[in-house]
């Protein structure tokens, strides 16, 4: 309690005692062995102090002036703090379902120097439905969802897809006289991204994670024109593509909608014996975060 005490001390009758020189500067009067001390509670918070002793009577008046500030007593109980922190940790994080996030379209480039595999494109929705575990701050989330993808890998630069029978394909140089050759490997499937999402500033944020890819359907086709002008087309189905693979995915979203993504697919789509071996980098536009 901080109360400023202002002693106005009116010495009304014969101050005969001598104040000792060694007393503190704010000492008004030292009385040894007082005979009687009477404290009278006066009006307006004033106190009157009557002292008898030292061969003389003294009458002091003191005034307590509160500065208006009452201290606040704070109690910190550690186990209560621990309990509430645990509760916050336990109950602060929440699950939330969502739909249609991460619609993307971008370019896919082979990361291996495979002749004939060209930069192509891909599109999909990485999370058609999903759920996220939000941190208490709501700035960090772990998301899991299900979506689909479609990749069209073009083949060119003097090469095209040829069938080797029994669902196997390979890259073959264009034959003499083949004109307007267009060849590609197209794959479609489901994806299961597991992402750690972090909001940075406002709705802007980033996400990093892995995407399980289930390559449900893959086909290849080659179209060309013969020297006599005949248009030919061959389709190869029932291919031996890798059924399951894992991609790495990074998304940087500017605002809550538009963003940029980079995806790395280290698993090659085909084994050497069943098709062209290539892995992909892809990057493009991401919508919905």
């Amino acid at each position, binding site marked *: *309690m901080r109360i400023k005490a202002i002693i106005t001390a009116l010495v009304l009758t014969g101050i005969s005692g001598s104040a000792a020189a060694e007393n503190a500067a704010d000492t008004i009067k030292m009385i040894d062995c007082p005979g009687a001390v009477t404290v009278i509670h006066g009006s307006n918070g004033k106190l009157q102090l009557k002292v008898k002793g030292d061969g003389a009577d003294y009458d002091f008046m003191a005034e307590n002036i509160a500065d208006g500030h009452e201290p606040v*007593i704070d109690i*910190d109980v*550690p*186990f*209560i703090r621990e*309990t509430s922190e645990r509760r916050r940790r336990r109950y602060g994080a929440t699950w939330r379902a969502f739909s249609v996030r991460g619609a993307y379209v971008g370019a896919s480039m082979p990361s291996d120097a495979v002749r004939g595999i060209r930069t192509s494109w891909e599109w999909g929705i990485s999370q058609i439905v999903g759920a996220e575990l939000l941190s208490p701050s709501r700035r960090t989330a772990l998301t899991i969802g299900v979506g689909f993808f479609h990749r069209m890998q073009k083949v060119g630069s003097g090469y095209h897809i040829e069938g080797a029978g029994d669902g196997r394909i390979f890259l073959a140089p264009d034959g003499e006289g083949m004109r307007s050759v267009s060849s590609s490997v197209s794959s479609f499937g489901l994806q299961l991204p597991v992402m750690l999402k972090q909001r940075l500033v406002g709705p802007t944020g980033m996400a990093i994670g892995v995407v399980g890819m289930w390559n449900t359907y893959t086909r290849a086709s080659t179209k060309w024109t013969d020297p006599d002008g005949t248009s030919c087309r061959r389709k190869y189905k029932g291919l031996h593509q890798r059924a399951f693979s894992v991609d790495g995915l990074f998304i940087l979203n500017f605002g809550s909608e538009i963003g940029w993504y980079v995806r790395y697919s280290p698993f090659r789509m085909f084994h050497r014996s069943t098709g062209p071996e290539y892995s992909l980098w892809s990057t493009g536009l991401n919508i919905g975060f």
Partner: protein
Amino acid sequence: MRYRLILLAACLALACSAARGADHSESERMIERYSSEPGAEVTVIRGGDLTRYGLSEYRSLTLPDVTATTLDAIAGAVKADLEASTAREVSYRDGRIKYAFLTLAPTGEGLNRYVIFVCNPAHNGRRRVVLIAIEGKATARQLQNLIKITSK
């Protein structure tokens, strides 16, 4: 015969209840009584992590905006506990108890009992009251080292 058994059971239940009540301090009764006041925050912890601190039970009541009548009733209970306490640390302001740390007589099981009372100013001229009742084997010194009480 059946009615006698029922009567005996009722008397036993009453006696047990009275015996339990005898161990309760006035402050603990206030915690129970005002636990349903508007804005009241009651925390009751028994066992579990408390045992790490040598405590067996912790009850607290926080009334963020207490009326004068309620404050008088709680302060009266604290005063009654203060008179019955075996050790005390009390500070007053304007003739009212502002802070009290009371050590009460141990329970029948030999557990130490403590009461902490704090009356702080609230925003609208009213008072914010915190009343805590603690039981355990911890000594008053251990408890004072555990619970940080600061004035600012």
